[in-house]
């Protein structure tokens, strides 16, 4: 199953040991606890485990250092702030977009240590110590990356709001599949949605970019 997307599953050990999903799960259980007595015990066990693993950060702001596009950026953030919101609201890197905000649509895709992730589903504190790459770093000295140029040439964008996420997903896909088949493309970038309907252009752009890379 090598053509299934590797993205969104960085095989890494999160520093805090707590993903946003787990965090949500735990807080969800807490919320219903008062109405379901037996769950209280379960909740406290979960919370204790989580605290032990994390060394308990927050709930107030904590210092966070993120390595973004090769530079260390510092901010004071609450632990609940996602990588996406930190990039956009703290560092003005607005290429990654907030659309579904729960790991479905891919508009927020960035790379973490070279792998595509949904930045809305990674906590900023968890992204510390990893190499974060955003769309802003892809074009160099005002020159588009060949993949971006392929998006332009094949009109693989209309409103363009999903485009940065798509470009980053496509980049990670091509890095792992330099000679993609159409079937691999259909699975490999299926973690991103477009509402305007630019998939015909995106398929053509991926084929062009793969060809350009081979010719280079």
């Amino acid at each position, binding site marked *: 199953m090598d053509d299934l997307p590797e993205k969104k599953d960085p095989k890494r050990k999160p520093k805090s040991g707590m993903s946003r999903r787990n965090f949500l799960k735990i807080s969800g259980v807490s919320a219903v606890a008062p109405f379901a007595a037996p769950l209280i015990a379960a909740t406290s066990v979960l919370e204790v485990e989580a605290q032990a693993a994390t060394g308990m950060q927050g709930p107030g702001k904590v210092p966070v250092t993120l390595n973004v596009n090769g530079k260390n950026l510092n901010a004071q953030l*609450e632990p*609940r*702030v996602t990588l996406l*919101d930190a990039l*956009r*609201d703290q560092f*003005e890197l*607005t*290429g*990654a*977009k*907030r*659309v*579904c*905000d*729960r790991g*479905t*649509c891919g*508009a927020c895709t960035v790379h973490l240590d070279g792998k595509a992730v949904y930045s809305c589903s990674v906590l900023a504190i968890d992204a510390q110590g990893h190499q974060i790459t*955003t*769309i*802003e770093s*892809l*074009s160099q000295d005002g020159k*588009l990356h060949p993949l*971006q*140029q392929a*998006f*332009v*040439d094949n*009109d*693989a*964008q*209309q*409103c*363009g*709001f*999903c*485009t*940065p996420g798509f*470009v980053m997903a496509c980049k990670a896909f091509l890095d792992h599949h330099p000679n993609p088949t159409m079937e691999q*493309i*259909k*699975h490999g*970038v*299926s973690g*991103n*949605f*477009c*509402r*305007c*309907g*630019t*998939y*015909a*252009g*995106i*398929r053509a752009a991926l084929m062009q970019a793969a060809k350009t890379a081979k010719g280079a």
Partner: protein
Amino acid sequence: MADNERDYSWPAPEKRSLIGKRLNRVDGPLKAAGKAKYTYDVHPPGMLFGKGVRSPYAHAKVASIDTSAAEKMPGVKAIHIIQGPGSEIQWAGDYVVEVAAVDEPTARDAVRAIKVEYQPLPHFLDDFTEPKNLPEDNGPLSPRDIFNMLDDDDPESTKRAVSAIQQRGIKFQVTPQLVERMKSNEVPEEVIKALQSAPMKEEQKTDSPYQKEAETVKGDPDAAFKQAEVISEGVYGCPVITHCCMESHGSIAEWTDDNHLMVHISTQNISASAPQYFQALSIPAGNVHIHQDHIGGGFGSKFGVDRWDIAAANASKKAGGKPVRHMLERDAELEMAGSRPSFYGRVKVGAKKDGTLVAWESHTWGTGGPGSAGAPQVPYVVNVPAIRRQYVNVRTHTGPARAWRAPSHPQACLITMGALEDLAAKLQMDPVDFLLKNIELTGTRANVYSEELKIASELMGWKQKWRPRGQNGSGPVKRGLGVSIHTWGGRGHSSDCALTLHPDSSVDIKMGTQDLGTGTRTAILMVAADSLGIPMEQIQLNIGDNQYPPSGPSGGSTTIGGVSASTRRASVDALHALFEKIAPALGAQPGDLEAANGKIQVKGNPAKSMSWKNACARLGAQPIQVVGKNPGPGNLIDSGVGGAMMADVSVDTETGIVKMNKMVCVQDCGLVISMKTAESQCYGAMIMGIASTLYEEKIMDPQTGRMVNPTMDFYRLAGIGDVGDLVVHMMTGKGYDERGPIGLGEPPTVSPMASISNAVANAIGVRVPFMPITPDRVLAALNQGANHAAG
């Protein structure tokens, strides 16, 4: 030469240097680089984050609001009551209180800390059940009731309408403007007179969610059905779906002083947003600065300044003018920032054995939420000689409807083309032949449809692939083809184009229009550069700001005609002024000059020329400034297009899964300005249509009155692997080009549901009546078909 004699007409094919070419969109590099700034990306210094308390009830009265705990929270800068105690909530998720705080987590906490008590009221959500046995409506008439009663071909209809007006009265004001409009729409004089003397009556207040509209009768449907040799009856329909713009609705509002408001807003309507702030805040429209560089999708849902936008402006005022950003979160976006009305219908349609259509009868209904659903007109495009139709509007608490690409058309097309396909199957006719047999019933565009159906058939390989129903192989996977035709108006809206030729040879254009991703920027630059004979890169285009001359809202496929025509007129006028300046130096009359290849030259004698740069240098210190307008002199645009669409699907009869193999779109839009972005519109329309056919539905919970799938995991869009092969063919050349550009945003979105659902019916031999065509519905239709055959 006087202005009205000046030749503004589109250049002949051999003279077009850019128009119609396949060029990259001009803002493509910026978007692909992730550097295009959308409203959601705007972050002025000191910006506060706006969030709202939203009603959990679909129908309720606000009983009390306690904001005291939130007010004490550090970081909370403003709290504004949007709907105070006593307000009646009409849909779940509606905003009640606005909060602005220093960061988003704090704003979220503050929203949770506000206590609102509601007095729940009964809600009504069921738009699906057929309204039956409704009492005859004898109440006062609406404009649409009267429209329904009138039939151009039947003088008796005038008499019936006059008598109904006199007996039932009317519930609207007959203003001089309305009279003018009726006259221009050829409403009979007797009807207008009757309206002017008709009694105004209050509509009876009723608890019924149903509004039965006046029946339309054309010809003699009863007699026509008696003559019909084959009659097909069926039920068809599609649910409410949402726009699901990738960039949610919202804005950033900032009071730059006590009486000036700066607004960044995600809108399809730059030039007419400021007056909406005046209505809500009494701030003069001239003091409201509206700006937007890029918009992340609108599709008809972003014409208005919304409740949350006004709330952000109010919160900003309370926070001492600091900018407040309120962009909707995804659940709010899906619950209330745009939905397309549902439409269901029971149809009976009859034909002669040779396929000649004779009669149509339909009972249709649908919901647009608390207001009107727009009453899609059936039969669609194919004007059956004898018709009886009745529509019932269902008022529900599902959230307000908004325009959705080609309002009412996809729904009307689905029901009409579905019923016609079922009739063709009963006649054992190929549905393309059946449409062609009746093509004269489409009226003035019959030739366009015939030509398009021929091209589409070739691109699809229809003749080789099409099989009659029930003959699509013996294996579990059945393959089928479907066809549909559609239309739209799309006349260009009003637009002003301010164009300046500078002595330094640069050119700039300012227009209060917007580019929804349709390629508006690209088209404007192609028209201007082609007209001026200079490269597109030499022209600076500024749009997206209400400080520029106004253009209409981008809706109803009106933008391309509007901005192309105003830009063409501005370019021709500016050139004319330049010609007057330099004609003496070339020893010619201004009328003898033309602009081409970066030069001004004498027509027919390119040797006598002057470079663009030198020509502009002769302007001295004074630039040439002109404003081109639409409407204006010369026939540059038209209205009314035709399109044909075909779908090829495979349906697994064991799992019920529908797979798209291929779709073909053949579309007319007059003169194509920008071929590449025009084709993209068609690709996009097919893909959006695949989603509404196979996946999309705003599912409401009858118990809680809330939408159960306000997330993108459960409100499903089509993915890159779901769409099959897509083929687009634009009609160009003689018969099309000379009409000038006509809008394209709506037409190709109309036929996907009809053509795909017809393909499914062709594949599996039975009709899946309702969208979306989910696996369970396919299996249910197959079971029912089997039972029907057995019983």
